[in-house]
């Protein structure tokens, strides 16, 4: 490999990037936009679910239950219904997500020693919210249930105070306030790196081919590995600028904690970037036109990193076959590593496996890309 020739290619590519100022701005603007969208606009936290209550019982017990529902913070009471139809209409229109009906015999049944049953009507069209709403309802009912029994026990016995037999002590590790931002932003670094790799490097070779400058490149004495390295250097630098930008925004705008080693994070990122860019380059070599290259890049790199990396959608929920596929997706390993470094503050020991996978991936793709390009040039 000739250093001079490599740098000549890199210089040419840099000039091309700088000349096309709009693409450059977009390459820097897309990460900022994604950061703002994910950091500021989007949240998966579910609270203040609009609730309608129809209390047919009007007893102290039913009032206490309604009180517990509204003071939990999970629900906000928007309607005290007097008719079944009111709840149905509210759910239809989407004003209400949960309707609770406390039947007229609720307290009477409790006193008689039967089960007091309430009915909950949940809008299931958004299954995430609906599932959480049901969990919240069940938790509140379980607490109500336990307290009711404690009181009954106090009433019947001479004891002044009853200890609950079991008390859960729940501790949320790594992200105790359950801020979804802390989870999303480290993962977002992987997505952004992938976007840059997919949308920029996947066009480098195919553009030369489509506009007819490939012949000129072939006639120069540049070798395939020099061409790859030379072409990737400026994009690597651009990717690093994006990485730095995202890191700084996460740190100073969104207050995402960074508990691990910064150096480790940047080293693993370089490894990932090399793999991702080589993949983009490989697509560029295979594709016969730019439309195909971008479509393949979106389909083969961006989409899997967005969907199959565990970035938003938990991998444990996927069907087994899809879970197996996620292991060959580099972003999955990178997202794992980023979250571990950011939130858990672990060292290289705990993340050796995913890092090794990233290294293998980078090596594999670079080799194939060089081979394919050599065949193309020769």
């Amino acid at each position: 490999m000739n250093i001079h020739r490599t740098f000549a290619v890199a210089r040419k590519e840099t000039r091309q990037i700088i000349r096309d100022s709009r693409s450059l701005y977009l390459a820097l603007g897309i990460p900022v936009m994604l950061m703002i969208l994910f950091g500021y606009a989007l949240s998966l936290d579910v609270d203040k679910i609009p609730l309608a209550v129809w209390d047919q019982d009007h007893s102290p017990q039913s009032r206490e239950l309604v009180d517990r529902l509204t003071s939990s913070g999970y629900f906000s009471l928007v309607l005290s219904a007097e008719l079944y139809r009111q709840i149905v209409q509210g759910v239809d229109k989407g004003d209400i997500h949960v309707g609770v009906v406390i039947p007229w015999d609720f307290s009477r049944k409790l006193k008689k020693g039967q089960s007091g049953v309430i009915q909950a009507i949940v809008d299931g069209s958004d299954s995430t919210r609906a599932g959480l709403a049901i969990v919240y309802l069940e938790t509140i009912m379980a607490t109500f249930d336990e307290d009711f029994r404690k009181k009954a026990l106090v009433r019947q016995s001479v004891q002044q105070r009853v200890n609950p037999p079991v008390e859960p002590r729940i501790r949320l590790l790594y992200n105790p306030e359950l801020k979804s931002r802390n989870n999303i932003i480290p993962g977002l670094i992987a997505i952004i790196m992938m976007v840059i790799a997919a949308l920029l490097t996947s066009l480098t070779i195919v553009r030369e081919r489509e506009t007819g400058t490939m012949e000129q490149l072939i006639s120069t004495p540049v070798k395939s590995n020099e061409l790859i390295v030379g072409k990737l250097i400026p994009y690597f630098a651009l990717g690093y600028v994006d990485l730095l930008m995202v890191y700084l925004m996460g740190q100073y705008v969104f207050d995402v904690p960074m508990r691990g080693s910064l150096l480790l994070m940047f080293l693993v990122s370089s490894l990932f970037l090399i793999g991702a860019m080589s993949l983009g380059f490989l697509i560029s070599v295979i594709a016969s036109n730019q439309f195909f290259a971008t479509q393949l890049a979106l389909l083969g790199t961006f989409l899997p990193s967005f969907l199959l990396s565990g970035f938003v959608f938990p991998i444990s929920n996927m069907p087994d076959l899809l879970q197996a596929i996620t292991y060959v997706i580099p972003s999955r390993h990178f997202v794992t590593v980023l979250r571990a470094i950011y939130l858990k503050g672990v060292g290289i020991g705990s993340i050796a496996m995913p890092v090794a996978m990233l290294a293998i991936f980078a090596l594999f793709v670079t080799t194939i890309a060089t081979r394919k390009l050599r065949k193309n040039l020769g």
Partner: protein
Amino acid sequence: MKDNTSDSGVRKQTRLLDSAFLRKKLAAAGAHLRASTEALSESLNRIRHLIRKEFIQIRRSRQNFALLLIAPVIQLLIFGYASRLDVRDVSTVVADLDRSALSREIVEAFSRSGYFTIKQMLNSYDEADRWLETGQAAMAILIPPDLERRIKARRTALVGILIDGVDTTTAGTVSGYAQSILQRFSADILSQRVNQMQGQLFETSTPHLIVPAAAEASRAWFNPNLNSKDFFVPGVVVIILLALTTILTSSVIVREKEIGTIEQLMVAPISRLELILGKTIPCFIIEIITMSVVVPLAFLIFDIPFRGSMIFFFATAVLFLITIAGTGITISTFCRTQQQAILTSFMFLQPAVLLSGYAFPIENMPSVIQYVTYLNPLRYFITIVRGVFLKGIGWDILWPQILPMLAMAVFYLGLAAFLFKKRAD
């Protein structure tokens, strides 16, 4: 009298003039009409030729042809199977230091709930930390060695639950489940005690349960099994159409610019409007074909209910595609290279998808952003699609969604035509 005759003469003259004028006008109009129908048919002819050229170009490139067929199917599969947010099979480890009948009952209660998969029984709390740190387990149940002794002594036993809080959606649900399972367990022990107490107090040999369980029945509407696929897959179909339409429309025009064939088209005897139509109609045909493949496929693979009207759905879908084609052409007028076009499309697609309520509820967004979502055509179409698929509602409830889409279709097409004309001149 004189006045009168002259008046009638004038009137006669005007009438004569009128009829002559009218006849001439009519003839001119007829000629014009004939000319314009001829022009129209010629224009349609030219557009048809352009469309043929586009299709030849698409067919020539085997790669593109295959991609246009395969890509939406792959997208549907990955998207449809991957985008699930429900919580189940949370990998759990248990450090049961008590190993008593009661502690086993607790573990049993967790595994019976169906939400937790017990991966491993551990011997110490430290091991649990390691499982969580490496991400192999998302939850750990820590049972202290004196659990049974404390419960029997009527004191409180603390059961520790460690949850990996990194994945916030799962963690929130998991902590809710864990708390309600343990509280139910606790309540059961309390009611046993009450029963015992009654036995002692009233000295009856058959204690009966006096403390009720304040149980509760939940029911979810429209999506009774809370399948998140029913919620996500209709949205997925829309996103696939959106991405294809934007990128396809914007890149077909920019491509001509980049490789320099736009000049040939410009000097060809076709108008700008014909050029736009000739370029977008083939895209439109491809999109309709894609839609007719993807929508039935979604039903077949994912078993999605369709409760509404098919005609209503297709009519709104065509309106949506027109809107998006308008944005695609608008993007293409700004860009010189395909790289710019794809980056700009991406800049449009990302916010459009993320701010549509597809995965992230709009109610949770800051109010400024909520207003921004009203400018997003996808927001309306996703509401329509979910309404038609899941709730089976139609025009009578959904018209507030359709009117803004109609306005946006007109606006974007107008903008595209205006910009295209301006930039081309």
